[in-house]
């Protein structure tokens, strides 16, 4: 939400690419600030406690956004073409913005994978996730790793928000349903597996869209939650996930 | 008469065979000790018997009925109660309240009766309190009745946990390392307490590392190593058993 809203505001006086980059940077800083202000100094918090705190923080951000931007619905202009133009790919007409979303999404996943597998910093983060104490014994600053993870997820969220808002529009409270879907997709794909998360995201999107065949459109938003509940009840480790990540269940 | 009969139980955790085809019996009214070097699988065996874990194979017959598929709650209702290696008293509750929880299986006031404060619950609550005080008197902790249970000294906490288990009026009491963390004087007291419990008619199975305690109070001893039984006999015979000595002290090279 912040990614989209800030980008739109900046777009008022900056070209689109610059507006988006700046929006992402600003949102990343917000992510870091949240972690440092609210999470960092907690002593061995349970995941539940962190979840509730971040829910409270998201409400705060919502309210601040409401007071800055009001209730108006904003959108960036289409990167290429317009809302009515489309590209013909083998008989199927696709909006050019959709291609932008897919393209940038793929780029983000690739960059993330490269980061985690090829860079030192990425490997340090994985070490932290695997065994925090052992990582600290190797000289890795675990606290900074957590802050970094908040920043990365904020950045990706911002990119997503900015790129998708020409199609879906963005409003001060757009964040909440997306957060739920994000959580659903993360669980569905299995925690700790970002490529699977992408696959899960696509599955969820398809299921949601096709749900209007069987259910009234008004219930579409409830689909992702119903799926989330189904997964939690049946296989909390997700379709592709590992049982170790599911051990997080015991907190 | 046999109260508990463990027949050929096994348990595997991934690549580790924690318990392998283990069998032994416990006679009613006796004290049986389960000993073995660290990692022998003693706690796992306890967990299998008391319904915390289901065995991969084998049967556990308690009081004539097969119980291997029952949960720890169902097992407790049938008269088998356990204590824990790392004391699991209820925090934020007093000693009296902890012991009163033990009376749960012998009382019946439910949600509705509790909410409406029905008259039959008054008498039931009074009887629960009386019985709990009896147990505290027996164990010598009645002075601490109103103290928060987890604020007591370690040794006393162990006694409270046993008191809570006794409140269930168990036929079989499983004690998981009751002397762990106790000094010599406290250990002797624990031994006397366990003997007294046996004299009250409760059968006891205990896991313990303190050999002097084991040898002093047990009627029979089962020795396990790497999940398998290597000896089952009276204490004196166990002390002289070659296999047992080898397992604990290693071979003479």
């Amino acid at each position, binding site marked *: 939400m912040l990614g989209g809203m800030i980008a739109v505001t900046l777009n008022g006086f900056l070209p689109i690419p610059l507006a988006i980059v700046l929006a992402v940077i600003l949102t990343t800083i917000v992510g870091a600030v949240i972690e440092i202000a609210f999470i960092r100094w907690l002593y061995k918090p349970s995941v539940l406690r962190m979840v509730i705190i971040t829910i409270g923080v998201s409400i705060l951000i919502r309210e601040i956004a409401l007071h800055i931007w009001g209730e108006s619905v904003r959108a960036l202009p289409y990167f290429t073409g317009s809302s009515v133009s489309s590209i013909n790919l083998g008989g199927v007409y696709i909006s050019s913005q959709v291609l932008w979303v897919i393209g940038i999404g793929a780029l983000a996943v690739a960059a993330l994978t490269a980061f985690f597998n090829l860079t030192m910093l990425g490997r340090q983060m994985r070490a932290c996730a695997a065994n925090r104490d052992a990582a600290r014994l190797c000289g890795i600053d675990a606290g900074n790793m957590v802050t970094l993870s908040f920043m990365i997820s904020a950045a990706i969220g911002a990119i997503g928000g900015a790129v998708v808002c020409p199609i879906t529009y963005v409003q001060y409270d757009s964040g909440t349903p997306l957060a739920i879907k994000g959580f659903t997709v993360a669980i569905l794909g299995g925690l700790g597996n970002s490529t699977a998360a992408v696959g899960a995201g696509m599955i969820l999107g398809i299921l949601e869209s096709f749900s209007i065949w069987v259910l009234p459109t008004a219930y579409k938003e409830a689909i992702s939650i119903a799926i989330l509940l189904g997964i939690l009840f049946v296989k909390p480790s997700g379709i592709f996930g590992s049982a170790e990540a599911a051990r997080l*269940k015991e907190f | 008469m046999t109260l508990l009969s463990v027949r050929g139980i096994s348990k595997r955790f991934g690549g580790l065979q924690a318990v392998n085809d283990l069998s032994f019996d416990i006679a009613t009214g006796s004290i049986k000790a389960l000993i073995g070097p660290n990692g022998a699988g003693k706690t796992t065996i306890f967990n299998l018997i008391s319904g915390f874990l289901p065995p991969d194979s084998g049967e556990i017959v308690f009081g004539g009925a097969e119980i291997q598929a029952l949960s720890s709650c169902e097992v407790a209702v049938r008269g088998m109660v356990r204590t824990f290696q790392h004391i699991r008293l209820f925090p934020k509750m007093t000693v009296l309240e902890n012991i009163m929880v033990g009376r749960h299986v012998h009382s019946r006031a439910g949600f509705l009766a509790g909410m409406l404060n029905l008259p039959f619950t008054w008498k039931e609550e009074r009887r629960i309190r009386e019985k709990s005080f009896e147990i505290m008197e027996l164990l010598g902790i009645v002075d601490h009745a109103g103290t928060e249970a987890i604020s007591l000294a370690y040794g006393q906490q162990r006694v409270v946990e046993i008191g809570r*288990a006794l409140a*269930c009026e168990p036929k079989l009491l499983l004690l998981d390392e009751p002397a762990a963390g106790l000094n010599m004087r406290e250990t002797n007291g624990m031994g006397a307490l366990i003997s007294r419990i046996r004299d009250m008619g409760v059968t006891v199975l205990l896991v313990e590392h303190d050999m002097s305690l084991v040898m002093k109070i047990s009627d029979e001893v089962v020795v396990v190593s790497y999940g398998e039984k290597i000896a089952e006999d009276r204490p004196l015979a166990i002390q002289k058993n070659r296999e047992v000595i080898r397992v604990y002290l290693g071979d003479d090279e």
Partner: protein
Amino acid sequence: MARRYFTVAAFAGLIVAIQLATLATGTAYYLTQLTMTAYYSLVIVGLCMLIGYAGQISLGHAGFFAIGGYVAAFLTTWDLKSHQGAIVSLLSKSGALVSRHDVYGGSLLTVHPWLACAAAVLLTVAVAYLVGGPILKLKGHYLAMATLGIGIIVYRIVLGTEFLGAADGISEVPGFPLPGGLLITGDSSSRVSNYYLAWGVVILGMILLLNLIHSRIGRALGAVHGAEDAAEAMGIPTARYKLHTFVLSAVFAALAGVLLTHYNGGIGPSEAGVMKSVRYVAIVAIGGMANLWGALSMSLVLNYLSLRGYFGTYDDAVFGVILILIMLFAPDGLLRRHLLSDLKRIVSRDPEGEEAP
């Protein structure tokens, strides 16, 4: 007489005192918000039981409130005149239906509020047992997200269903009749009686919950919350008790929904929203998680201020901030049961301080 009943009597005295104060200062219109506060407090004490004593968090309790309110609203405004059939005539003959007039003078045939209330509670019990079973097997944050999900599903259903009024909700809900000619309604002429009726319901609820806490079950719940595996080993069926407590708290919420809907004369989808659920949890948290009186007093203050508009446009933000602060600094809540003894301990440990009072 058990000690807890003295506190109940004291609280009842407070309620009377407040009403007399409004009488003396000519501010009887405050009673409206105070009455609404009472019904919200009913949800909160039920939730406090679940979170504090059974140790299960629920971020979707507004959903149960909405189920209660919407079922009651729908059944008491659904005109059955055009649905004449075997069932309708049977219900009508047995007195289950009410013939009344709507605002425009037309005649309506709707379900009697008592039957509607029973239906609302029954549906809530059914839903709570159905989802509670699998949900309560989850731990920690998974449980939280699942309950959040339930609340959102209810919200989406009431928001998107035409016959439930969609975004506008249901209005023109009649009053709820009680024996003795009393009526639960928002009419300003019965402000005082409604005030006492509402708080009477809350006090009754408190008595039931306090009794439960001091009973064998209350002790068992404390054990489950303290050390679940040990409780199980003592013969306490933890899963079953957690489920019963969950359903109990859901019934409290649903009943509050029914009565408040009759009082307000209507209900809207926002009553099922996440913000409301967060609000309930925040108040339970600041009241001290396992402290019924704490939750009740905080509810009285915070809900009243919110309803009178003291928080202005920052209404939702206030409760978000409360939740954050409590979770950051005092995860066990502010008005803990043992706060007094904790304070004494801190004071007496202070080397330069004086003896504990």
